[in-house]
């Protein structure tokens, strides 16, 4: 077995004095990732994905529960565990900007115990593989964000780890780089090298395209673990009616109005820059279409209507009532000030 | 100048002072720090004096400075240096700080001059430093027996104002300079030490011909001589008219030069587009 996460709980303290409270980032999380499997964690921002990855990577100590990597406890045998893990986090600033790409890799190679010709060969190989050879001697500050992400990926692969933890690997990248990273994960890391991979994302297409099994995670809890296909069968004979509306709408009001139509199963509303996207999951949409339009027209102007087959996101909404595009982080999560 | 514009500028200055003050009070520990540490930093000078002289009064020191009381000498230097720190860090580093907060670009797109904002910061710094110095003076009187009387307050404040007008003018030009360079902290530290070496903050510069000549170009030198003359030698401002005149001339040069330099630097940064880089 590759990664075993058993009943992991992680709470964070927020606020001071009387305002002190705890938020639960991971709430009794358990799952097992098989050796050679590409396992996805799909959930909105703030669902607890990154917290979990940090716990596995030995960077965070869980309050309860146990995590093992190929049988090694990440807390008690943390050195052995770290040797098996390659970590990729999202974000621009994870490299030494003032050093060249090669200098960065040389430094981390030393931390992972790589030396001499073996190290040089490995670094050359990775630079070539990721198309960074021509810029290897340039300072990282001159790299585009896509190139920086590729270099981070090279760093994660330096010691040829058995396990890769990829935390939002395509976040903030332009589509071309994101496509490259995805196909690299699929073709190179999974098919050719047979790595065990935990990938977190809030992009449903990414999860759908790459992952063999996906855990839905929302507000610190695992909702379900299934293959993408199994998820889509979760809501049989169901269709998704999607309406694009003008203006910001009140979710509560819409829900009461639409709640009168009893064949509707789930409603989600996402307001974004003066436009709202209303998703209605129902069996046989054509029977409710005119009623919905009638009701919605009283509230706002309809810009577009579409009827779709359910996607992973729709399944997610169906199961949790939360959209993947939402930000479920709590306001208090911001602890910059001190 | 248009009268409405003037009123508008005044209210912007007021808003900037309020903002700066609020930010200080969010770092309460810093208030405590600046009220005490400038004095703590000179304690080694006091013990060094004790060891080298073997008493509290030094004859050779009196020949250079007119007073043999070296403890009072360094304490006064320490208090005045608070204005130097506030000018360099509070004004000189302030635009850097705004870029760090990510707020500088929003200030620049607002329909006001950056200079007006900087004047607001300068006034706020002056008030802040004065409160700190008042606190330090109280401590120095209680713990080190520094002899301060209230009737000297007016002439002292006059010299201090003459000092800070020129010095903050310089600091504003330096703030413009920080828009072009990146490693501002290092520069501020070096400037600090230049002032400590080439003006009589901690020792009489007359002791060495080089420091004596260089210090003659720094207004701080004259201000310190005048302040010490008032406190330690009981001189009044009328006796010190030459120093006051020199300070006035230097103020005019520094304010004018600082203003021109700042405008030039601001223009260059906008052209080069390096304003928001951090």
């Amino acid at each position, binding site marked *: 077995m590759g990664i075993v996460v058993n009943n992991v709980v992680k709470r*964070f303290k927020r606020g001071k004095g009387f305002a002190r409270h705890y938020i639960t980032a991971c709430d009794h999380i358990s799952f097992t990732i098989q050796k050679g499997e590409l396992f996805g964690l799909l959930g909105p921002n703030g669902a607890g994905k990154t917290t979990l990855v*940090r716990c596995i*990577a*030995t*960077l*965070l*100590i869980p*309050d309860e529960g146990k995590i093992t990597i190929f049988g090694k406890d990440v807390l008690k045998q943390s*050195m*052995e565990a*770290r040797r098996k*893990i390659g970590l990729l986090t999202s974000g621009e*600033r994870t490299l*030494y900007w*003032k*050093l060249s790409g090669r*200098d960065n890799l*040389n*430094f981390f*190679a*030393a*931390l*992972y*115990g790589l030396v001499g010709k073996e190290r040089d060969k490995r670094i050359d190989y990775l630079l070539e593989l990721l198309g960074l050879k021509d810029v290897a001697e340039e*300072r990282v500050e001159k790299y585009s964000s896509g190139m920086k992400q590729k270099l981070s990926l090279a*760093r994660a692969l330096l010691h040829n780890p058995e396990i890769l933890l990829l935390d939002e690997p395509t976040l903030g990248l332009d589509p071309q780089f994101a496509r490259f990273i995805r196909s690299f994960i699929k073709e190179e890391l999974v098919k050719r090298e047979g790595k065990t991979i935990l990938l977190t994302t809030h992009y449903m297409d990414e999860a759908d395209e790459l992952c063999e099994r996906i855990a839905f995670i929302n507000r610190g809890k695992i909702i379900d673990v299934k293959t993408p296909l199994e998820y889509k069968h979760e809501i049989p004979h169901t269709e998704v009616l999607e309406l694009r509306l003008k203006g910001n709408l009140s979710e509560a009001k819409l829900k009461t109005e639409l709640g009168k139509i009893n064949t509707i199963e789930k409603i989600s509303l996402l307001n974004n820059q003066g436009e709202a996207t209303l998703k209605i999951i129902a069996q046989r949409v054509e029977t409710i279409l005119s009623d919905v339009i009638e009701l919605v027209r009283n509230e706002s102007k309809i810009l577009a209507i579409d009827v779709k087959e359910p996607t992973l996101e729709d399944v997610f909404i169906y199961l949790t009532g939360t959209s993947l595009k939402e930000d479920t982080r709590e306001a208090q999560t911001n602890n*910059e000030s*001190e | 100048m248009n009268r409405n514009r003037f009123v508008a500028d005044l209210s912007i200055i007021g808003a900037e002072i309020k903002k700066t003050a609020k930010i200080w009070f969010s*770092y309460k520990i810093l208030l405590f720090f600046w009220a005490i*540490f400038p004095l703590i930093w000179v*304690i*080694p*000078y006091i013990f*060094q004096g*004790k*060891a*080298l*002289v*073997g008493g509290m009064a030094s*004859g*050779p*020191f009196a*020949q*250079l400075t007119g007073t043999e009381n070296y403890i009072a000498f360094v304490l006064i230097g320490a208090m005045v240096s608070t204005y130097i720190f506030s000018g360099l860090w509070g004004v000189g580093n302030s635009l850097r700080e705004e870029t760090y907060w990510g707020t500088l670009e929003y200030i620049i797109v607002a329909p006001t001059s950056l200079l007006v904002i900087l004047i607001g910061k300068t006034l706020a710094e002056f008030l802040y430093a004065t409160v700190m110095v008042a606190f330090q003076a109280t401590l120095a009187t209680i713990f080190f027996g520094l002899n301060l009387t209230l009737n000297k307050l007016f002439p002292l404040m006059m010299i201090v104002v003459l000092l800070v007008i020129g010095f903050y003018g310089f600091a504003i030009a330096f703030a413009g300079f920080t828009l072009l*360079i990146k490693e501002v902290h*290092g*520069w501020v530290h*070096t400037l600090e*030490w*230049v002032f400590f*070496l080439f003006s009589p*903050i*901690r*020792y*009489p*510069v*007359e*002791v*060495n011909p080089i*420091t004596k000549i260089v210090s003659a170009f720094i207004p701080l030198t004259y201000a310190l001589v005048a302040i010490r003359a008032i406190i330690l030698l009981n001189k009044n401002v009328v006796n010190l008219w030459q120093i006051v005149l020199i300070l006035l001339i230097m103020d005019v040069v520094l304010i004018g030069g600082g203003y021109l330099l700042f405008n030039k630097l601001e223009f260059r940064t906008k052209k080069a587009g390096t304003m928001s880089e951090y």
Partner: protein
Amino acid sequence: MKTFFHYLRAIWAENIKEWKIELTYKADFLRGLIDPLVYVLPYLLYGIALVGGRNSQSLEKLTGTGDLITFVTLGYIFIGFLNMALWAMGFSLRKEQYWGTLEAVFAAPVPRWVYALGMAVHSTMHQGLMIALQLIVISLVFKLSVNISGIVPSLAVVGVMLIALYGLGMMIASLTLIFKQGWLISEALSSLIMIVTPIAYPLAVLPIVMQKVAMVLPTTYGILTVRHFLIGEKMGFSVATSFFRLLILCVLWVAFGLIVFAFIDKKTRSSGTLAHY
């Protein structure tokens, strides 16, 4: 054995990386070389102004050596290692946090102390360079006179003092991870230690309470013994006593540094603030 070499290489890689980053800021690096000189000079000129020359009878009576220039210079040069521990080493983790690289470093299979030693090696080399430069320039301007035979034993003393200061450096480095205003801790500690340590004066001029505090500072023994070897300063205790106490302090400070470091490492990994800047 393999692990040992792995750690050794990691320490060296850390040192090289720090140098490379430091040297990309060329103007800063050059200014960094001048700063310590400008820092020492006011103390020397002040001394000359007080006694009207470089020889102080009072100092001779107290310490057995009257040359205030050599006395004060040696004191301020070797206290530079305190600032190295408090600033260069003390802020190394904070820097990584700011760069965003701290998590990548901490996820690698090396213990934290290996990383700490890497920063120690770099900051010691850096400070060594500064000290050499200070010594050269000041001796050119003022002519310092020291016993050549005292140099080797002085280096031994400095070596032991350094180890104790690494303990302090580790403690500060970890404290900066939980206190956003970490520079205040460094500033306060540096100011207070520099008052109590007999840098530009002998212990005898300090009030009794401060003398007592000086007795638990490795810098006190370091500087007194170095000056004893180099210019024959009377210490008030024997060289053997000084070494013995310095060794004990060394163990205590390093142990304390490690404990604080381990405690805060655990704390930040529990609270999840490792990556916060």
